[in-house]
C-alpha cells in the first residue's frame, strides 16, 4: 500500500472552470482506482488546484491488483474424454481457463459430471494499470471550452499541457498524455519561484513542496487566506478616528479571485472622493465586473477605497507600484463614468424621447419610439383593469415611466455599461426630479432578470415590466418568431417567465389572459400567447415552486389563467395529497370521471334538476346531502383562494362516496334513476374540477 499523487500542469485555466474540473478529476481517479481494484471503497482522497494545475492525492493504493480466481464450468466429462484421452473439447476448455489439461477437475452437477477449472487472472502492477487508465480519464474531463495546440490536432484540452507528475509511493508512474510523460517535477510560482522545477519526493510532500515554491495548492486554504487578508488590510487601512472600514462581502468575487491566484495577497487602493456622488450601481459595476475589486464601506456607505487581490507578494515598494497602477486604471474608468453621467444629463430624458425614433427595436416592429408608444397603451389598459379591481396605483406615474423607460438607451452611460440599462434610466429620472414612482418603475423595468431575481418593487414598476415584456412577445409572435425547441434568440421565454413571476409574487389583480388581451388585438396571436403563458406558468410551478409534475398538470387543467390562484391550488393539493382520505376521494373522482365519460360515449345526455319518481338509494341521498352541506362553505373557501380547507371538505366526503360506490350501480337500467345518479356525479365532478383535475394525480398502487 502506498500514497498516490497525480498532477497535471497547464497554461492558465479559466477561473470559472477550475472547481468543476478539480472535482471531476478527483472523482475519476478514485473511481478508476476502485474499478481496477487498487483501492477499497471510501479511500481517503484530496484534490488541489491553482490556475496552472489540477492534482489528486489518494491515501492507500495497492502496489498490485490481487489475483482474481474464477471458477469455470466446461463440457460434460462424457464428451471431454474418449477412452481416457482428452478430446478437443477438453483442450479448448483448458485453454479458455488458462490451465493445463491435467489441471482440469470434475464437478458433479444435476445434469451429470462436468469439467471444471479455476481460472486465475493475474493481477497487474498498479503502475501498469494507472499508466494505461489515466490518459483515458484525463481525456474524458469536461471543459466548457477546449482547444487544440499540437500539430495534427491529436487531442483537445482546456489549455496546453505543460507537465505531469505521477507518484505511487516514492516511484514515478510513466503516465503519458498530450505529448508529456509524468515524472516527479512540478513547477512553482512563475515570478516568486521562477522556472526551476520543484521535485516532489513523495505524495505526502506535494503540498509543502509547493508552498516552499510559493504555490498554495489547497483551494480552501487559499480562499481563507484571501478572506483574512481582505479583513486585515481593510482594518489596517482605516484611521482610528473614523468609523471602521469594512469590505463588502462578495462570495462570487472571492471565488473568482481564489481561482485566479497561486499565491494571493491583498492591497488596498483609493479613489478620488469626487466620484462618490456617482450612483453606487455604477461605481460597483466598474469595480467588481470590470476590475475584480472589492468595494469598501464605512457605516454601510461606499467609501473611496477598493481592495485588489494580487497573484504575488512583494515588499512595500512593489505594493506601492501595484497600488498606483490599479488606482490609475480605476481613476480612468471612473472619470469616463463621471463624464458620461454629467454629459448625458445635458439632454434630459424628456428630450431624448424623440431620439428613440432613430433607435431600431426590430426591423418590422420599428423604433424604440414606436415600442414605447405601444407599451404605454398596454400599460394603460392593464392599469385601468387593475384600478377597477381596486388596486392602488399612480396611473400618471406609470404613463410617464412608459414614455421615458427606453430613453436611457441613447445615453453614453448605457452604451458603455450596457448591463446597467434600466437602472441608469431610473437613476437619471431621479436625478432629473421625476416623481419617485416614475424613477422606481424605470429602474426596475427589466426585472426579474431570472427566476432567482426580485420582481419590481412597486405596482407601477410591475405594470411597466409586464407591459414591456408582453409587447415584445406579442410583436415577435405576430411576426412568427416564436421560440423553438432550442432557439429563443429574443429571450421570450425569460420575458414570459418574468410576467408569471410578477403576477405570482406582486399584488396586481391581473390574469395572464388580461395581459395577452392588452398586448395584442390579433386573435391568433392572443391565443398563441395564452398557450405560451400557460406553458411558462407550468414551468414556474414546477421550477420555482417545486410542485410535482402531476399536481401541476392537475391544477392547470382546472385553469391556467390566474397565476396566484393556480399557485394556491397547487400548494393546497400538495398539502393534502398525502392523506388517505384525499387519496380515496381522488380515486373516486377518477372513477366518477370515467363513468361520465362512458355515459357521454353512449350518447347519454344528463338532465340536471330533473326529479324522478321512485326510491333514491340511501347512500345516494346521503352523498347528495353531504355534498349539499359542504357546498356553500366550499364555494366561500374557493372564492377566498382558501384551498386547503376546501380540499379538506372534499376529503370529508370520503365516507359517503365510498358507500355510494360500494352499494350503488350508477348505470341503472332505469333511465330516470341513471340520470339522477349521473347528474349527482356530474355536479360533484364539476365542483371539484374547479380546484384541479384530480384524475391527473398519481396515486400509489
Amino acid at each position, binding site marked *: 500500500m502506498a500514497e498516490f499523487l497525480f498532477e497535471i500542469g497547464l497554461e492558465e485555466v479559466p477561473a470559472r472552470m477550475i472547481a468543476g474540473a478539480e472535482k471531476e478529476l478527483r472523482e475519476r481517479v478514485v473511481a478508476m482506482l476502485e474499478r481496477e481494484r487498487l483501492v477499497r471503497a471510501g479511500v481517503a482522497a484530496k484534490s488541489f488546484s491553482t*490556475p496552472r494545475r489540477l492534482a489528486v492525492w489518494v491515501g492507500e493504493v495497492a502496489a498490485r491488483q490481487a489475483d482474481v480466481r474464477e471458477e469455470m464450468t466446461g463440457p460434460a466429462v462424457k464428451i471431454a474424454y474418449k477412452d481416457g484421452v482428452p478430446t478437443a473439447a477438453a483442450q479448448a476448455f483448458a485453454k479458455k481457463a488458462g490451465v493445463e489439461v491435467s489441471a482440469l477437475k470434475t464437478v458433479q452437477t444435476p445434469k451429470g459430471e462436468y469439467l471444471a477449472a479455476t481460472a486465475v487472472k493475474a493481477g497487474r502492477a498498479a503502475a501498469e494499470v494507472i499508466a494505461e487508465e489515466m490518459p483515458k480519464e484525463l481525456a474524458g474531463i469536461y471543459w466548457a471550452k477546449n482547444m487544440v495546440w499540437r500539430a495534427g490536432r491529436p487531442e483537445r484540452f482546456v489549455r496546453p499541457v505543460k507537465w505531469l507528475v505521477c507518484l505511487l509511493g516514492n516511484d514515478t508512474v510513466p503516465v503519458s498524455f498530450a505529448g508529456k510523460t509524468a515524472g516527479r517535477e512540478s513547477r512553482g510560482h512563475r515570478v516568486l519561484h521562477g522556472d526551476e522545477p520543484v521535485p516532489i519526493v513523495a505524495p505526502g510532500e506535494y503540498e509543502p513542496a509547493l508552498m516552499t515554491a510559493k504555490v498554495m495548492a489547497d483551494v480552501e486554504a487559499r480562499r481563507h487566506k484571501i478572506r483574512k487578508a481582505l479583513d486585515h488590510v481593510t482594518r489596517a487601512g482605516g484611521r482610528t478616528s473614523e468609523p471602521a472600514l469594512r469590505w463588502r462581502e462578495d462570495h462570487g468575487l472571492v471565488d473568482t479571485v481564489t481561482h485566479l491566484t497561486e499565491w494571493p495577497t491583498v492591497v488596498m487602493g483609493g479613489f478620488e472622493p469626487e466620484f462618490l456622488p456617482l450612483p453606487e450601481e455604477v461605481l460597483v459595476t466598474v469595480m467588481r465586473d470590470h476590475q475584480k475589486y472589492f468595494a469598501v464601506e464605512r457605516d454601510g456607505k461606499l467609501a473611496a477605497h477598493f481592495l485588489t487581490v494580487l*497573484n504575488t507578494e512583494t515588499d512595500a515598494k512593489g505594493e506601492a507600484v501595484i497600488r498606483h497602477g490599479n488606482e490609475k486604471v480605476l481613476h480612468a474608468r471612473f472619470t469616463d463614468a463621471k463624464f458620461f453621467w454629467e454629459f448625458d444629463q445635458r439632454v434630459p430624458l424628456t428630450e431624448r424621447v424623440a431620439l428613440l425614433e432613430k433607435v431600431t427595436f426590430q426591423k418590422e416592429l420599428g423604433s424604440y419610439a414606436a415600442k414605447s408608444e405601444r407599451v404605454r397603451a398596454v400599460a394603460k389598459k392593464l392599469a385601468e383593469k387593475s384600478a377597477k379591481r381596486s388596486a392602488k396605483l399612480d396611473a400618471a406615474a406609470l404613463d410617464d415611466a412608459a414614455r421615458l423607460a427606453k430613453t436611457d438607451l441613447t445615453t453614453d452611460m448605457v452604451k458603455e455599461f450596457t448591463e446597467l440599462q434600466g437602472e441608469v434610466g431610473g437613476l437619471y429620472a431621479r436625478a432629473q426630479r421625476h416623481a419617485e414612482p416614475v424613477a422606481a418603475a424605470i429602474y426596475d423595468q427589466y426585472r426579474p432578470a431570472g427566476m432567482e431575481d426580485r420582481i419590481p418593487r412597486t405596482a407601477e414598476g410591475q405594470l411597466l415590466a409586464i407591459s414591456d415584456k408582453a409587447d415584445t412577445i406579442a410583436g415577435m409572435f405576430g411576426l412568427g418568431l416564436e421560440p423553438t425547441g432550442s432557439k429563443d434568440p429574443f429571450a421570450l421565454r425569460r420575458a414570459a417567465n418574468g410576467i408569471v413571476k410578477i403576477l405570482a409574487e406582486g399584488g396586481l389583480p391581473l390574469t395572464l389572459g388580461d395581459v395577452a388581451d392588452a398586448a395584442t388585438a390579433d386573435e391568433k396571436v392572443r391565443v398563441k400567447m395564452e398557450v405560451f403563458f400557460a406553458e411558462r406558468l407550468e414551468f414556474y410551478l414546477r421550477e420555482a415552486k417545486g410542485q410535482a409534475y402531476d399536481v401541476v398538470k392537475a391544477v392547470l387543467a382546472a385553469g391556467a389563467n390566474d397565476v396566484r390562484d393556480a399557485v394556491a391550488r397547487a400548494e393546497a393539493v400538495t398539502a393534502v395529497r398525502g392523506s388517505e382520505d384525499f387519496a380515496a376521494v381522488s380515486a373516486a373522482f377518477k372513477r366518477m370521471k370515467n363513468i361520465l365519460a362512458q355515459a357521454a360515449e353512449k350518447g347519454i345526455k344528463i338532465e340536471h334538476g330533473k326529479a324522478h319518481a321512485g326510491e333514491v338509494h340511501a347512500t345516494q341521498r346521503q352523498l347528495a346531502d353531504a355534498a349539499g352541506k359542504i357546498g356553500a362553505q366550499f364555494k366561500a373557501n374557493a372564492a377566498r383562494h382558501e384551498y386547503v380547507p376546501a380540499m379538506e371538505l372534499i376529503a370529508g366526503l370520503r365516507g359517503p362516496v365510498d358507500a355510494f360506490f360500494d352499494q350503488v350501480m350508477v348505470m341503472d337500467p332505469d333511465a330516470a334513476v341513471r340520470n339522477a345518479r349521473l347528474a349527482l356525479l356530474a355536479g360533484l365532478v364539476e365542483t371539484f374540477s374547479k380546484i384541479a383535475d384530480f384524475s391527473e394525480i398519481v396515486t400509489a398502487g
Partner: protein
Amino acid sequence: MQGIASEKKALTFQELVFRLTKFWADRGCVLQQPYDVEVGAGTMSPDTFLRVLGPKPVRIAYTQPSRRPADGRYGENPNRLYRHTQLQLILKPPPENIQELYLESLQAMGIDLREHDIKFEEDNWEWPVGGAWGVGWQVMLDGLEITQFTYFQQCGGMDLDPICGEITYGMERIAQFLQDAPSIYDVVWAVEPDTGRKVTYGEIQLAGEQQWSAYSFDYADVPKLWEHLRLYEAECLELLERAKGFGEMDRLALTRFPVLGAYELALKCSHVFNLLDARGAISVTERVGVMARIRALVIGVAKAYAAQGEALSSMAS
C-alpha cells in the same frame, strides 16, 4: 506618484517599440512593416489573417496602427484613441515556452515582474466577420489590460493545423503605464539625442486624433460611404467569382491572381462599415445584414487563398 517611474528611467514610446521588435527579431521573427490599408487590428493585416492559414510555419512581428472610428474622442480623452498602435506577433506553430518568452519580453521593456501583479485572465478572442476565433487570455498588469494572447483555432471558417499563437501588445497603454503619464498625449514619444528635447505623443498624433474624429463623427458623407461600400463589395465579389476558375488557369495566371487584391477590397469594406457605424448611420438590425455581407467577402478571400495555395502546390507536383 511621480517618484515611481522616474527611479528607473522609463523608455520612450519609440524605444519600447525598438526593444520589443528587437526582442522578437532575436528570437526568429521576421520584422514586417505595418499594412498600408486601413485595418482595425493587427489581426486583419494579411500578414496575420492569410499567413495563419495553411501548413507553412510563420514567425513574424510588426507594429500596426489600428483604426477604430467609434473610439475617436477628438483628442480629448486621455485614454482612448481613434487610432492606436498594436504590436502584433504571430508564432506558427506556437513554441513550447511561448508564455515564458512573453514574460521575458515584458522584462525587455523594463518591467520588473517582481514589482508587479501579472494575471492571465480568460478572454477568448473572436472575429466573426473573419470566421476566426481562438482561445486565450487578456494579460493584466496591475489591473490594466496590456496584451491579448490567443491560440487561434479557426480562421476564414477553416480549422487551423498547425495553429498559431498570436500576441498583441497595446503599445500606448504600455508606454503610458511605464511612463506613468496622466494622459496618452503626455507620453514621451522620443527624446532628440542632440537637443534633449522631448517629443510627446500629442505632438505627433493630436492633430490626427482631432481631425479623424471630426471626419468620422461629423463630416463623413454617409451616402458616399454607402456607395464606396457598394463599389468595393461588387468588385471583390467579381474577383471571388473569377477565383472559382483556378482549375482552368495556367501557372502564371494562377500565381498572379490577385487574391491579395480582393482582400484589400474586403478590408476597405470593413473600414467603411466602421465609419458608417461611428456616424450612427447603421441601425442595430441593419448591422447584422451588413456584417454578413462583409463576412462573405472575407471568408471568400480566405477560401480563395487556400484554394490558390493548393492549386499551386498540386501544379508543382
